[in-house]
């Protein structure tokens, strides 16, 4: 089978003044991949993703995108949105279509239909008229996932999507991501806590400013030199899952 490379990241480096947050990181993303980029807090994961998305300037290296089209993005910490912000769920999801519009950006009937379909896909159509800020953390993440998917992106990038969710909600959210991946959506996910996520992905990239590991989750758990991280995160949740 020919594996289509969607994106190749080549020696990407991000610096903040004299501090190097991401140091010559290279890897490829293939169509259908489900990749977890793992590492401790401050290991450069978010800087790497921001550089890939063009949100942060890369001091060196390039991101070669082999496919044109929208990228689905779920930023970090959107779950703790201001509860008083008056944005309805359908207004939030429609933001996902902005990348497909040119100035002046306006939404028509076809766009509203796409928003409705995306809400149905994530099983949150009943929340369409509700205020986003009043939803539970799990519901908010599903709505934001609907926003990230509404423009049919060729890749979905999620930054710590489960960090604000409890264990049950995290499992439900990961089940949704798995079914999306099985339906052909390529996913790149950042997490500081690989526990409860590793089993779902086909590839783990572990980084501490540089890439220290790139391979399967099973192989990752056998890395003796990464044992403090693996013991703290990967194994702990494994134990919790088995107990529950």
């Amino acid at each position: 089978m020919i594996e289509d490379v969607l994106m190749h990241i080549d020696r990407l480096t991000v610096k903040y003044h004299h501090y190097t947050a991401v140091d010559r990181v290279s890897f490829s993303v293939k169509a259908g991949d489900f990749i977890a980029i793992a590492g401790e807090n401050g290991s450069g994961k978010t800087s790497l993703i921001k550089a890939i998305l063009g949100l942060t300037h890369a001091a060196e290296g390039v991101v070669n995108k082999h496919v044109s089209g929208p990228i689905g993005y779920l930023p970090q910490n959107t779950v703790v949105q201001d509860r008083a912000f008056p944005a309805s769920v359908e207004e939030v999801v429609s933001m996902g279509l902005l990348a497909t519009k040119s100035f002046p950006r306006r939404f028509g009937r076809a766009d509203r239909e796409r928003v409705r379909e995306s809400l149905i896909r994530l099983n949150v159509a009943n929340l369409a008229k509700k205020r986003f800020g009043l939803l539970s953390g799990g519901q908010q993440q599903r709505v934001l996932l609907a926003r990230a998917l509404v423009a049919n992106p060729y890749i979905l990038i999620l930054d710590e999507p489960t960090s604000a969710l409890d264990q049950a909600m995290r499992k439900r959210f990961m089940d949704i991501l798995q079914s999306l991946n099985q339906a052909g959506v390529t996913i790149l996910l950042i997490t500081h806590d690989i526990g409860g996520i590793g089993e779902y992905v086909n590839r783990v990239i572990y980084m501490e400013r540089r890439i220290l590991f790139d391979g399967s989750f099973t192989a990752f758990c056998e890395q003796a030199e990464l044992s403090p991280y693996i013991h703290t995160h990967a194994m702990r949740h494994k134990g919790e899952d088995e107990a529950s």
Partner: protein
Amino acid sequence: MTWLELLRAAFTYGFMWRALIVGVSIALSSAFIGSFLVLKRFSMIGHGLSHVAFAAVAIGLFFDQAPLLITLPMVVLTAVLVLKLNESADVHGDAAIGLAAAFSMALGTTLASIGGGFNLDLYSYLFGSILTIKMLDLWLAIGLSLIVLVTVFLFFEDLFTMTFDESFAQVSGIRTKRLNTLLAVLTGLVIVIGIRAIGTLLISSLIIFPTVIAMQFSKGFKATILIAVISSVIIVFVGLIGSFLFDLPSGSAIVLLNGIVFFFVYVYHRLIKR
């Protein structure tokens, strides 16, 4: 003269019509832009810029020039400078606004003290006076509020997305730095529009009150703007008529009315509706 006769008489005066047209222009533009500023937690930019407007008016009066023609470039320029100062990360946003506001007040009061003779004029600019609205103010208010309304209409979805989630807006191809600058410039324009009828010290409240009142009711963003605009127009209209009937400074009457409406809406929403 009964109140009804007084009210009828009010509409026979040219200055009253000018005040109402200027008032509606301010109500529309400030409520439109206020929704973005309040939710982006930028409302204090309006407050800071209104202090700069005070200094600009004092400079105008000191040199015997039309104050609004000096205020317009000075406020817009400060809006951009405050934003750039904030972006440079050397000075935090609220500190940059505080610096500009304090310096401007000091400059304005110093000029008023040296000038001596224009304190009464300056007072009318501080709290608004419907009697002082001239044809130039009227056309300036109509023109500037049209610019604000058309710009917000054209950039509506971009502004909404940036207000809700700036990094997502960037990924969607929105140039957020430019849009933030545009928002600051539009805020400056709204401040200038409101100087005559509301006054430099009170105009920023017209940016904040309508949105905060509307937020008590609505679940969606478009509905919030619609409620903010409608309530703002009604309150400004009633406030201007009230200022004529009771011989009050127009800005004070409008802001007091906004405060009373907000109090009842808040109490109703928090205590009775729940």
